[in-house]
């Protein structure tokens, strides 16, 4: 599987090995980490939840699209699920390629599309004691309630 979930720390050494190819001149990876702040709030920990059956399909489609669009050798994305602490790695994307340019491009497209399209949700817990589902709480509104999007 070129897109998968794990509930334990992402093994980047193993993931990297899956991209090895004698025709590749290098590889690019992106690591997403749990940050201690978001939109003015102090974040203390996170939870990720996914609709895994559809998420894996959509993630595989994203990788397949990137492999068609860019002349790269291999691509892989691994996303954490469950409870994460600050500085934990939430997501890893790796792309190997004959030349670096398309590896950077494909890696960027894959992480951007994963963030926009794959049914994964993130609950942030804040220093204040509050918590919230990212992208869901702020613009949630009762019907007929007029609200502004930031």
């Amino acid at each position, binding site marked *: 599987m070129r897109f998968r979930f794990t509930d334990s720390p992402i093994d980047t050494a193993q993931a990297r090995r899956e991209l090895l190819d004698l025709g590749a001149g290098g590889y690019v990876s992106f690591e*997403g980490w749990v940050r201690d702040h978001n939109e003015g709030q102090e974040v203390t920990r996170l939870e*990720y*939840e*996914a*609709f895994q*059956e*559809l998420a894996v*399909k959509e993630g595989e489609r994203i990788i397949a699209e990137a492999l068609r669009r860019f002349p790269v050798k291999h691509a892989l994305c691994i*996303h954490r699920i469950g409870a994460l602490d600050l500085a934990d790695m*939430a*997501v890893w994307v790796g792309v190997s390629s004959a030349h670096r340019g398309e590896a950077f491009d494909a890696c960027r497209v894959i*992480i951007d599309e*994963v*963030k*926009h*399209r*794959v*049914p*994964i*949700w*993130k*609950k942030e817990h804040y220093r204040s004691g509050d918590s919230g*589902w*990212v*992208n*869901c*709480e702020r*613009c*949630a*509104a*009762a*019907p007929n309630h007029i609200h502004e999007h930031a």
Partner: protein
Amino acid sequence: MQLKIHYYALMREQAGRSEETLETSAGTPSALYGELVDRYGFTLLRDQLKVAVNAEFSDWGRALEPGDAVVFIPPVAGG
């Protein structure tokens, strides 16, 4: 007809459950969401959601069949 509904994230918390089998007369995901808003007071507007039927993205106007598995998809936040 009976439908299987799975809830995730904010909607799971607001529904107080992660899944249920529901007897409904709602013929489309759109009608079904209206019914569930009345039942659970979901705060997300329909325009903020996507919907999946049988683990594939679907139109809101699709004709639902008995036994279909429906998932409403709140705004995502992976990465």
